[in-house]
Each structure stands twice: as C-alpha cells, then as structure tokens.
C-alpha cells in the first residue's frame, strides 16, 4: 500500500490531525467528553493507520519495541507515582488535594498526571497487540 498515492497523501494529511485531536481529547477531558482512555485509543488508531499504509517495519522505526513496552509499564508506574506522591506529602494514597497549597489546583494536577498515565498505558497496550498480531501474520 506504500505505492498507492491516494492513501499516502490522505495518510500524510490526516495523521497529524488525528494526533492533534487525540491531544485535544486528552487535555480537554476536564471540560468536555474525553480523558485518558479515549486519547490513548485514538493515538493507537493513528499508529495502526500509519503502519497499514507505510508498512510494519517503518512503523517499528518510529515506535520501536522497547518504547512501546516501556509505555505499557510507564503509564501504570506514573499512576502509582501520583498515588505515592500523595502519601509522601502527607495525605492518604491517591489524595490529590495535598499536592498543592490550593486543594483545587492539587486536584487539577493529580487528574492531569493520572489521565496521562492512563493514556500512555492504553496506547502502549493496543499498539503492542497490533504489532504482535501483524508480526505473527508475517511469520506465517
């Protein structure tokens, strides 16, 4: 599919917008529908689209295996780090209001970081599953 010019042009036009939209969904989860899960799924979908048009090896150069696997674990670790930060500063586990002098800002901070962690893990897992399925298909 690399040689089909329509797909290549449309892909180059659409993929940056898809990624931008995913960023918007992630960051505006507080004010509208959205949040970590949706953003992670949309980024994974954009990468799947890229891999389908340009080939799996090219996609692997952009998102190498070690990066995807670190993303899977990194998101969960980020979430736990926010939880432990609450413990460290003096509140309970996963308390956000102690993270800043103003409790509402603390809540914003906590929610921002955990949504980021969730998005990273979801994106990593979905991408890794796609890589494994396609790699299996190429081995057959």
């Amino acid at each position: 599919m690399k040689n089909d010019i329509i797909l290549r042009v449309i892909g180059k036009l659409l993929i940056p917008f898809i990624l931008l939209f995913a960023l918007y969904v992630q960051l505006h989860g507080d004010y509208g529908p959205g949040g970590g899960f949706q953003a992670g799924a949309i980024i994974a979908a954009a990468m799947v689209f890229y891999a389908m048009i340009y080939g799996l090896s090219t996609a692997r150069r952009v998102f190498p295996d070690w990066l995807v696997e670190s993303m899977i674990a990194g998101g969960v670790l980020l979430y736990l780090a926010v939880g432990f930060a609450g413990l460290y500063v003096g509140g309970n586990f996963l308390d956000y209001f102690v993270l800043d002098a103003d409790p509402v800002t603390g809540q914003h901070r906590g929610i921002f970081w955990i949504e980021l962690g969730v998005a990273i893990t979801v994106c990593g897992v979905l991408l890794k599953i796609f890589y494994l399925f396609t790699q299996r298909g190429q081995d057959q």
Partner: protein
Amino acid sequence: MMVAVVALTRSRNLFAVIVLFGLYSFLTATVMVALDAVDVAMTEAAVGAGISTVLLLGALHLCNSEEEKPAHKPWLPLLVTIGTGLVLVYGTWDLPAFSDPVAPIHTHVAPRYLEQGPRETGVPNVVTAVLASYRGFDTLGETMVVFTAGIGIIALLSRRRYVRRGKQ
C-alpha cells in the same frame, strides 16, 4: 441494532460477522449519545468499534477465515435463551420506569456529586471528576487490568512459531 444482531447470528462468513459487529458497535455508540452518555459513547466508538474490529480482523487473518460449518439444530440453546429472556423480562417489570426522576439511582449519591464535584475538584465534567478523583482507585485497578492483558498477550504471542515436526 436488533436487525444487525440477528443477521450476525445467521451469517456464516466470518468477515461479514466482524463487519456487522463493527456496525453494531457504532449503533451502540449513537444510542449512548442519545442517552446523554457522551464520554462513554466516545470510548465505545474509539475502543469498541475501532480497536475491537481491527483486532478481530487481525485474528481472522491469522486463522485464515474458515467458514463456520453448519451446527446441529440449536433447539436446546434456543429454549434456554428464550427461557432466560422471559425470566429477565419478568424481573424487569418492577424496575423503575424509563427516566423516572425519583428512582433511587437519582436520589442517593448522584446529586451530591453533581452539586459539589465541580467545586471540590475544579473539573466541570463530573464523569472525569468521579472517575479520576472520587473513584480514582477503581481507575487504578482498570489500568492494571489493561496492563495485565497486555502482558498476557505478550506472553502468549511473542514466542516465534515453532512447528512440531510430525510424530516421532
């Protein structure tokens, strides 16, 4: 949606089954928007209709899309299904009517979240506030489930295929 599901049940070509499932997911996302659940609709559209369909098609490609063979006449499963359905319908008779403002679901703890959520957390989207702040522990568990599923799939599929060479 009912038509899609009936067609899916009767269809034997697996590719058609997967496409009908994608259609069904999209219709579900639309119904969810009609039910005022916009966050859920976005998640269902992205994850259910998008990613699930891709995964099913990938698995179908790996399993070489065999057509399903005709089963024996499914009278017993049909009976069991209809029986269970009738019992469930009997059970839903006592449930509150659709959109009843004094149903227990609306009077217990939801008004508290709706009124004080934005003030306590500074986040107008009450669903995100509840998901990330009030019930943040559940979201941690959910992230761990996704992580575990990823690890499980890596464990299952990352070994290179080896072919058993006939009986010794």
